[in-house]
């Protein structure tokens, strides 16, 4: 374990070169609320409505684009549909960093597996890798995922919970807006829909989450993966909450918009850092390894 904060004990330093997660600040963070009056900032979560539906020719994944940190909106247009493989995409709810890093890791692992086997990735492979990793971290990696894709055995859709359990269904929703989205699915889903019907259904489900859940908001993103291998990523498919019109219509005080040349220039003096440095070229410097 590590010595006093700020000082490195030899015993602690000899064990410091361990890659992976760094728990140095855990003890300090745990004592902050009890020993001081400070409170920790909350991790950025994606409150989220994510949903997926299988249709006749493939899978449609949808997500909202709001990321919250506590009660404030941290990102009004974040991307929640992550790439795993050319034929597999994954929507992520929960702690934003966890979903992003987990999906990146699994994407790299799938890439490695494709290189060593020479065949396209299967959705069930991605599902197994994700559930094994999430179970290994016992739910501390807070990532709830909707995994969808098309492979040689058809179109598949999985939902993966943070502790590692999975479900395979024709339509799935996850996140804080999952109930709102699921209500739309339960009324509107039918087998063998066309692509237009599936897109409309997912759009309505995500909108239900956006309007009825505080943790979800802003735009609707869609990704369509078809059986013939085509993928269409529709980022910002629908933007019902665009702030641009509001922002431009607001009358700001004239003092804020100063035209160029409004301030008179009295004198100009330029001092180069050193004579002869005008053609300075910065070369790549590699750190000296110790």
């Amino acid at each position, binding site marked *: 374990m590590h*010595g006093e904060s700020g000082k490195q004990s030899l015993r602690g*330093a000899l064990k410091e070169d361990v*890659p992976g*997660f760094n728990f140095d600040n*855990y*003890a300090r963070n745990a004592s902050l609320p009890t020993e001081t009056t400070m409170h920790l900032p909350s991790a950025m979560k994606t409150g989220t409505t994510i949903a997926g539906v299988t249709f006749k020719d493939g899978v449609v994944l949808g997500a909202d684009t709001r990321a919250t940190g506590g009660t404030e909106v941290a990102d009004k247009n974040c991307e929640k549909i992550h790439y795993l493989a050319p034929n597999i995409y994954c929507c992520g709810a929960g702690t934003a960093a966890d979903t992003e890093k987990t999906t990146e*890791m699994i994407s790299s692992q799938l890439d490695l597996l494709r290189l060593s086997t020479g065949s396209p990735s299967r959705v069930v492979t991605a599902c197994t890798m994700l559930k094994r990793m999430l179970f290994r971290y016992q739910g501390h990696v807070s990532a709830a995922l909707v995994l969808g894709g098309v492979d040689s055995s058809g179109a598949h859709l999985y939902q993966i919970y943070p502790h590692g359990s999975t479900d395979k269904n024709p339509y799935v929703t996850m996140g804080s807006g999952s109930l709102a989205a699921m209500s739309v699915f339960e009324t509107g889903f039918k087998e063998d829909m066309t692509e237009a019907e599936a897109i409309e259904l997912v759009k309505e489900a995500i909108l239900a989450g956006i309007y009825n859940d505080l943790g979800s908001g802003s735009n609707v993103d869609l990704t369509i993966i078809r059986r013939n291998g085509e993928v269409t990523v529709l980022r910002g498919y629908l933007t019902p909450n665009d702030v641009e019109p509001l922002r431009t219509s607001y009358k700001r005080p004239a003092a804020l918009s100063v035209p160029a040349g409004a301030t008179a220039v009295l004198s100009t003096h330029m001092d180069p850092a050193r004579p002869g440095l005008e053609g300075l070229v910065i070369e790549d410097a590699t750190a000296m390894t110790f």
Partner: protein
Amino acid sequence: MSFELDLALPLLKEPVDQMREGLKAGGFRSEAVAPHPVQAFQATRKEAEFQARLDTIARLYGIAAAMRLKTERDILSRVCRAPGLPSSMVGLETVLGTDETIEFEDVLNDPQERPDMPLIPVHERMEARLGL
């Protein structure tokens, strides 16, 4: 190099080198705090998984195969450079099969990509390891 985690009373497990570590050292304060649950089971998981694998191999293929695997791992984990220097451990990764996997340990906090210089130089680490 194995990292044991003892959640019982903070007992003195090895002698404190007060010349190097200071009079108040010994790690009692930090050892008394409960570690993060992930840290706790990460410390024991690798060894436990390896033992389970050895057990499976012993039941399927016989004790000799299991002992051979264990010996290979022990030998290959000793072949490395001086402490603080990078060692690629190619043999160990091949035997354990970790050269074909990507984990968080490969990506996060790579000791070779630290922005600061290591506080303890190679020579002091070597002296500490040799007990000089």
